[in-house]
């Protein structure tokens, strides 16, 4: 599993890093911490152009190293699969506009990369996820300011909408007491089931699986899938609740159940959730709700 954590120098990013550390402790995923330097910041641009190693004083780069420390401190030293033998904390340009920590965990069992890209944050995060074939992008956001990033109010929403893989928008506003997963189709991947399983155990949360219905009834294939999912989780000692929600009431349901802390949406390519939950509604959920949002693709 490859997790891409997009960060900046704000506290919401520290929260996202900690969430990923918890997830990584269970999954031993390969993790990349990515910071994006804005091209519009001429000072930073010239610094990057002149000498990547001279970036050490840049607040974002400093923050990246702090985040790496936060991530590693979650593990006991001997058990940490990400600990490398060390080397200079130096960034090298691996291709135009993309920088990486020179010794980045070469000797470790699992990768913990530190990457810096320059450009538009939303676009660069999506490019990195595509190039590295990430399975999950995690990013925090400032829930007091409509879940924006300091460098761009729409970054988390753009990533959530356009990413080719699953995305977790981790908000610090609420403890996750219950994970509410909405399902409207029968093409749920094993990886996404496992992802929910991990989230349930690392938050000690309960789980509700929501079947989306049309005209007060679930499609037979959705019912069968829900039954399979139920059995899958029972075998793992999890007793999920099942709830049926008519698509017409999806908005009010989401508004009510976002209080539990994490709303997950299984959005397949042919998913009717894409119709029932178009970009504008997904934006609204990310922007206005206190709950973290997990989009499973």
């Amino acid at each position, binding site marked *: 599993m490859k997790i891409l954590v997009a960060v900046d120098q704000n506290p919401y990013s520290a929260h996202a890093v900690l969430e990923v550390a918890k997830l990584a402790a269970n999954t031993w995923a390969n993790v990349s911490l990515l910071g994006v330097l804005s091209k519009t910041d001429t000072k930073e641009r010239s610094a990057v152009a002149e000498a990547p190693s001279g970036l050490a004083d840049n607040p974002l780069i400093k923050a990246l190293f702090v985040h790496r420390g936060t991530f590693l401190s979650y593990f006991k030293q001997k058990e940490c699969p990400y600990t490398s033998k060390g080397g200079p904390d130096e960034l090298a340009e691996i291709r135009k506009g993309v920088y990486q920590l020179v010794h980045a965990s070469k000797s470790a069992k699992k990768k913990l990369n530190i990457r810096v890209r320059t450009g538009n944050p939303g676009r660069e995060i999506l490019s990195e996820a595509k190039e590295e074939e990430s399975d999950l992008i995690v990013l925090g956001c400032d829930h007091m300011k409509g879940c924006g990033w300091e460098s761009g109010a729409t970054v988390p929403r753009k990533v959530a909408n356009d990413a080719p893989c699953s995305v977790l928008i981790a908000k610090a506003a609420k403890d996750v007491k219950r994970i509410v997963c909405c399902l409207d189709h029968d093409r749920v991947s094993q990886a996404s089931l496992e992802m929910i399983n991990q989230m349930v155990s690392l938050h000690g949360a309960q789980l509700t699986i929501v079947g989306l219905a049309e005209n*007060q009834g679930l499609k037979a294939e959705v*019912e069968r899938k829900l*039954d399979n999912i139920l059995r899958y989780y029972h075998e793992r000692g999890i*007793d*999920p609740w099942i709830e*049926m*929600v008519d698509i017409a*009431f999806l908005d*009010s349901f989401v508004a009510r159940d976002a209080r539990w802390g994490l709303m997950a949406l299984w959005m397949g390519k042919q998913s009717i959730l894409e119709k029932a939950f178009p970009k504008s509604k997904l934006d609204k959920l990310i922007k206005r709700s206190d709950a973290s949002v997990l989009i499973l693709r």
Partner: protein
Amino acid sequence: MISALVSLNADLASSIAFRYACRLMEYIDMRLQPIHVEEVDKGSFPPGSGWVRSTWEKGLLQTAEEEIAQLVNAEKADCPSLDATIVEIGEYDEALLHEIEEKSYDLLVEGVLTSFHGQLFHRKIRSRLYRFSPSPIIIVKNLVQPDRVAVLLKDALDVTPLISTFLKLFSTPKASVDLIHFAFKESGKPEIKEKIQDDAVPVGSENACKLLNTAKDLLAEKGWRPKETWVIRDTAEKISEFLSDYGLIGACLPRNVHKDSLMLDLLSRIPSATLLCKK
């Protein structure tokens, strides 16, 4: 040993209800009788009469039997005391009422998925089956462990029917039971959520405690002692949240419950299984 009828269709709600009923056998000494009623669409008429009709009915029954057998066989290993499934063609409520009356079952178990706004639950409670069933009914919404039971008491009329139903089903104390006196919060009044310790009576809860003590005495006659006793006054939403950790909630409903009843609202919000008896 009590006899329970479990109504099955080839759907998710029935699959959950069936598995819950099997789990319930760890706590209740019961024999489980599965039944499936194959409903013919209203407005469509059976073809012909005599041989044509009987062949058509046989075909319907065979298909239904195969579907239900799949569901039952998948769980059979966990359900030792299981009788052969009864499969009938007919109107659902009428067929079940007839079966319950004829064979005097002690309990009906049925699955109803939780739905936003509780539409399915409301419809079920107001159905002919629920209004006229001579036996108590367990509505299963989710597959939970029925090891913790909450008995919900609202007024004095609830105590005898509810406690006697509970004692009839749970003849031996294998599960734990809590007694909960509840009231719906009126505007301007404060919420209450108090665990009653020993014989202490909180100010303002004298009537509730009296009623809880009557229930305790009835339970004690059969060797039951509630693990916890609570007095709660809050909104239906908050009370249902409090009750969500239980594996079974016992409650009384009048035979003709009004659709705007707060009690109905409360029960529709509870995600656990609900044991309903009439008062």
